[in-house]
């Protein structure tokens, strides 16, 4: 055995080991450089980026929702208010099994099938991480039971929330509208308007009525708390705070008691009524019957109730004052009369003899007067007080449809009144042009004839009639109807008046206007079509009745209300203002299927005048609306 070889090997192996140690050291140095290069990149090169990310990790903006503004009537009575209540809410993403959780909650507190259906509908509209209310206005016992069992019901929360309450009842629903949960459509609109930030944390938005049209003022400005939060999102401490600015309170022109009187006066009838202050355009009452309970919508309505409301033949969701379009019937006559005078087609004393019908030259078609046998000799004032149709058939033919269109347009017919509510209809004021555009047909002379008594294509809303009547009442000034008279600055606590809209002054010869106004006063005097409705009033009323046909009556046939089922009976209309010499209130009433304006619509207006001008109210009417403590 050669001893030299292992020894030689040993030396060689040792030398190699030392070489390899150096390689190992170099390898370690390389790894260390790689680590420090990475640390240099993160901590020096990218430091700004990472410090920002650490900050955004740490700081979260928590929105604080402003309190929604109140809505008060002219006397400070609360129509829409907020109250705090506990609600039971579920977040689907946090529940382990939604159905099991619902069943478990159902064992603890009572959940009605309606609440469950509403919950499911809201759930279908919400994202998985959104919190959806299951039951609101929990009792103290329910809160206690849920709190005790919360630990085993992940995703279930009891939250204190502000709720909207409309205590004035269904009668105010069409004015106030309602708020509802913000849906995808609302979100999209908010995003487009750049208002999305202000709704972080808001669950509700005005959907209809004043709640919708004054949404921006009522909502207020969302505040933000800068919170330091840990990884699980729990707030550790507050860094800074921008307080929310509460929404503004609205004070209406409307008198909730007058509203109740008007609503009561309708009895079982459906229809619409609007009362304006002709000097300001302030809406004193706005009734659309039937109403509905706006509170149903606040937390999301259950599908059954919604279907019932939406598919009811009485259409309670439609605001008839703004959106109900009806032929104005004879209520158009004072405006026609004024047109005749102003256009020089008639003089007050000009008379016609009314045989009970009118025929166009070279035509055998008879346009009948509502009074069989006619009114005999009729001048302008009598044409109004008796509502003589033949007088206006002739006048319309003399005027022609285009001049009629142009003159009536000055009263705002055919256009929106500009009231501070959304969804108003502009009605229809026909003309030759319009018919050509709409139907590609020429205008026929017979159509002019019936337009003269407010039939045919002509369609108006009760609100348009009221604003037109206000022009007569205040001597030609065109005011825009306004519901809100003032807003309260939430911080200064002072009311700032909202100026009403004025659309200029109509140039009307005072003498002409006086004659028409006399005619309208005659309507309320013995012999006039609404004389009975003025009996015993300690003030004077100027008015005009109207009847709008729902079904056409054949030539030679007679309209007999008693033989028609109620839904085909004529609509009764009435426009009026009082006191006639110095008007402070204008009313337009439309009673669906009410028959004659004089017999059903005018008494309703009388009740409104009585309350507004003398304080008299129907004995059986009770009103429970609390006043704001301000």
């Amino acid at each position: 055995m050669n001893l030299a070889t292992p020894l030689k090997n040993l030396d060689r192996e040792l030398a190699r080991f030392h070489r390899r140690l150096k390689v190992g050291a170099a390898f370690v140095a390389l790894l260390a450089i790689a680590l420090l290069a990475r640390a240099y990149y993160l901590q020096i090169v990218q430091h700004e980026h990472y410090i920002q990310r650490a900050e955004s990790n740490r700081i979260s903006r928590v929105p604080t929702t402003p309190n929604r503004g109140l809505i008060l009537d002219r006397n400070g009575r609360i129509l829409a208010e907020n109250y705090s209540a506990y609600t039971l809410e579920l977040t689907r993403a946090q529940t382990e099994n939604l159905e099991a959780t619902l069943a478990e909650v159902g064992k603890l507190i009572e959940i009605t099938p309606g609440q469950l259906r509403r919950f499911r509908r809201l759930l279908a509209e919400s994202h998985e991480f959104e919190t959806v209310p299951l039951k609101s206005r929990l009792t103290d016992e329910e809160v206690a039971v849920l709190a005790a069992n919360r630990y085993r019901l992940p995703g279930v929360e009891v939250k204190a929330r502000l709720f909207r309450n409309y205590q004035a009842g269904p009668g105010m629903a069409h004015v106030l509208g309602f708020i509802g949960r913000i849906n995808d459509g609302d979100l999209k609109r908010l995003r487009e308007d750049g208002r999305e930030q202000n709704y972080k944390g808001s669950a509700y938005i005005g959907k209809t009525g004043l709640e919708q049209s004054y949404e921006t003022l009522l909502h207020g400005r969302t505040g933000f708390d800068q919170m330091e939060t840990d990884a699980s999102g729990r707030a550790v401490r507050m860094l800074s705070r921008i307080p929310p600015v509460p929404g503004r309170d609205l004070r209406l022109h409307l008198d909730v008691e007058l509203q109740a009187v008007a609503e009561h006066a309708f009895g079982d009838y459906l229809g619409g009524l609007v009362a304006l202050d002709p000097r300001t355009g302030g809406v004193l009452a706005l009734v659309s019957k039937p109403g509905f309970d706006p509170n149903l919508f606040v937390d999301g309505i259950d599908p059954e109730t919604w279907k019932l409301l939406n598919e009811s033949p009485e259409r309670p969701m439609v605001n008839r004052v703004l959106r109900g379009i009806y032929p104005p019937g004879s209520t158009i006559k004072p405006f026609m009369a004024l047109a005749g005078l102003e256009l020089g087609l008639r003089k007050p004393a000009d008379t016609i003899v009314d045989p009970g019908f009118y025929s166009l030259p070279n035509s055998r078609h008879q346009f009948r007067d509502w009074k069989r046998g006619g009114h005999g000799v009729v001048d302008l004032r009598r044409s109004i007080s008796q509502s003589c149709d033949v007088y206006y058939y002739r006048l319309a033919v003399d005027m022609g449809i285009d001049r009629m269109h142009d003159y009536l347009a000055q009263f705002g017919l055919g256009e929106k009144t500009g009231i501070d509510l959304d969804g108003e209809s502009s009605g229809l004021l026909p003309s030759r042009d319009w018919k050509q555009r709409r139907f590609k047909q020429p205008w026929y002379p017979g159509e002019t004839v019936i337009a003269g008594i407010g039939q045919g294509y002509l369609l108006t809303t009760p609100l348009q009639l009221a604003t037109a009547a206000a022009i007569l009442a205040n001597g030609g000034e065109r005011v825009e109807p306004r519901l809100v008279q003032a807003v309260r600055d939430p911080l200064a606590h002072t009311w700032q008046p909202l100026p009403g809209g004025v659309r200029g002054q109509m140039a009307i010869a005072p003498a002409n206007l006086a004659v028409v106004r006399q005619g309208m006063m005659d309507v309320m005097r013995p012999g006039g079509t609404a004389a009975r409705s003025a009996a015993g009033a300690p003030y004077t009323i100027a008015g005009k009745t109207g009847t709008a046909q729902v079904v056409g009556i054949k030539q030679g046939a007679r309209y007999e209300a008693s033989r028609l089922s109620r839904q085909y009976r004529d609509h009764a209309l009435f426009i009026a203002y009082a006191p006639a010499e110095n008007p402070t209130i204008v009313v337009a009433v439309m009673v669906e299927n009410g028959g004659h304006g004089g017999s059903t619509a005018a008494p309703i207006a009388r009740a409104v005048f009585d309350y507004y001008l003398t304080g008299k109210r129907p004995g059986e009417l009770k009103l429970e609306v609390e006043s704001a403590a301000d």
Partner: protein
Amino acid sequence: MPRISHWIVRRLSHLDGILLTLVLVLLGISLAVVASASGQSPARISGHLINIGLALGVMVVMANVPPHLLSKVGPPLFFAGVVLLIGVALFGEVRNGARRWLNLGFVAFQPSELMKLALPLMLAWYFQRNEGLLRAKHFLSGGVMLLLPFLLILRQPDLGTALMIGASGFYLLFFAGLPWKVILGGGILGGASLPVMWGLMHDYQQRRVLTLLDPSSDPLGAGYHIIQSTIAIGSGGLFGKGWMQGTQNQLDFIPERTTDFVFAVFGEEFGFVGAIFLVGLYLAIVARGLVIAARAPTLFGRLMAATLSLNLFTYVFVNMGMVSGILPVVGVPLPLMSYGGTALITLLLGMGILMSVATHRQLNKS
């Protein structure tokens, strides 16, 4: 009494001053960082202190075990480890989808932990036996000894541990003189087989690699750890936010922040300067270890000292690389910094061996 104190002094004389100082400095930093990361939890801090005490005790004991005795432990420990790994494959408990644990009735443990020391001991013993006669066949059987536990652990599956144990075995073969052509050839072969490896990898392993390449692809899942730890490190800047001032740390954004991700806490609170200092400490330990290896009188001591040194830095690299987002997330603690008894004891056991090699030179010569 003088005899007892003399005995204590003799035992302590086997400690290497430089290594001991470095280790104690690191452990001191570790205590401070664990205290900050745990929100000054008394339980965590006292637990850490107990672990440190135990581990230091183990180190002192190991430092007094002469290398020639230690080398004799290698073969039985290695064979026991292999038997246990086979036992795991046959009867092991499945936790988190991997069969890694062996339940011995009174205690459940991972035999792969045992292998971390057993494999280098076995190989060092083997090469010591054949010192001066080394031929290809010795490296071949060394390779078999390496592959046996490597493959057993790989199929548990536990890629991270398999690679770490494979690396320690490779370092030993390398220092024993594994020919360069074999190393280079193996490297080329390994590179070429990467796509095949990818196909053999489990879903969660593939996901970890993918997450590394683009952490933001899964910000709330596997990527969350890496994103939050890199934010912590990056936001630390040059000097750090200060001890106990790291927002990522204090507000719970860093996951596993007393254990595997402790470097994220350190980087956030002590910054780039701190990172340089920390890496410097590790380098100093490695340097001291390599010096010990260079001076060691026996092949066993040389191989063990060099391998343990490189192994330590490999753990440092893999951990910091993972926490700072250049390596996939594998469950490797940061040596001497992370909270955790087992890892700390294993590490200081290794330090004890290094010290034993350093201080038993004269004894061996005599």
